[in-house]
């Protein structure tokens, strides 16, 4: 389990955090209908790292769109809007993939063009 104070991961049976000494309490059993329960929240990734990587490496504006949705994910989580956060998470993921795919597509088009130009100059 993770320490609630410093976030350090501890053994499941530990009573005190090995990093900061905080008393550890076992995770509460999940409420069946708790829509805002931590288990739901923990499944909402914001894809911020991917968005930054796409922005830096793919040279296309899609990474910036993904950063916007990453910010929305965390904003909605802070406000307790789990469904909204999941929707933004889905879009952040989608735009990260679009940016990544476009980057790969540009790379392939470039390789093909270089290849064709190479052939063209050979023929002349």
């Amino acid at each position: 389990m993770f320490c609630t104070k410093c976030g350090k991961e501890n053994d499941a049976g530990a009573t005190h955090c090995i990093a900061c000494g905080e008393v550890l309490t076992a995770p509460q059993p999940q409420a069946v209908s708790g829509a805002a329960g931590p288990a739901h929240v923990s499944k909402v990734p914001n894809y911020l790292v991917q968005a930054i990587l796409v922005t830096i490496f793919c040279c296309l504006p899609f990474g910036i769109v993904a950063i916007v949705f990453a910010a929305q994910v965390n904003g909605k989580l802070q406000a307790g809007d789990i469904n909204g956060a999941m929707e933004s998470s889905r879009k952040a993921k989608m735009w990260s993939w679009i940016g990544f795919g476009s980057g790969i597509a540009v790379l392939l088009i470039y390789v093909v063009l270089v290849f064709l130009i190479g052939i063209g100059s050979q023929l002349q």
Partner: protein
Amino acid sequence: MWFSFFLSVLAPNCNNRIMRTDQISPDFFPSVNRWAKSLTLLVVVCGAAGTLYFLSPNDSGVYPPCPFNALTDLHCPGCGTLRGLHELLHGHIGNALGLNLLMVLSLPFIGYSFVNYIVAGIRGRPARKIFIRSWIIWALLGIVMLFWILRNLPVYPFVFLAP
């Protein structure tokens, strides 16, 4: 610098229950074994680093140009990343800063999430999760947009931001 700012903003947030509820390294292929994914990612990154080390983006011609730069002749926020990484791999931090300041400053963050993901994946543990407050991400977005504009200004202090 940017990273320490980052951590200092994160630290007070750690008491919040929501702190561990967001993944810094979300999984893209949930059905695939995390161990295999971590190893694959490690191999790919090492291969890319090796390629970048030996083939300079300046003269080898194997890397594609930035599509934004090719279309508009302007610099995008990512322009200079490959050349900057090549310089970094050869230990020329100053040159790398001159090519893409934002890339160098974001490397600690990306490096942290990368190491975090790889180490946790290979040890078979869940990746450590950090919740980043949304205003920090909005600020990051602002920095990226500002960087994009400023590095295209042909005026004295800003010309250093261009690659």
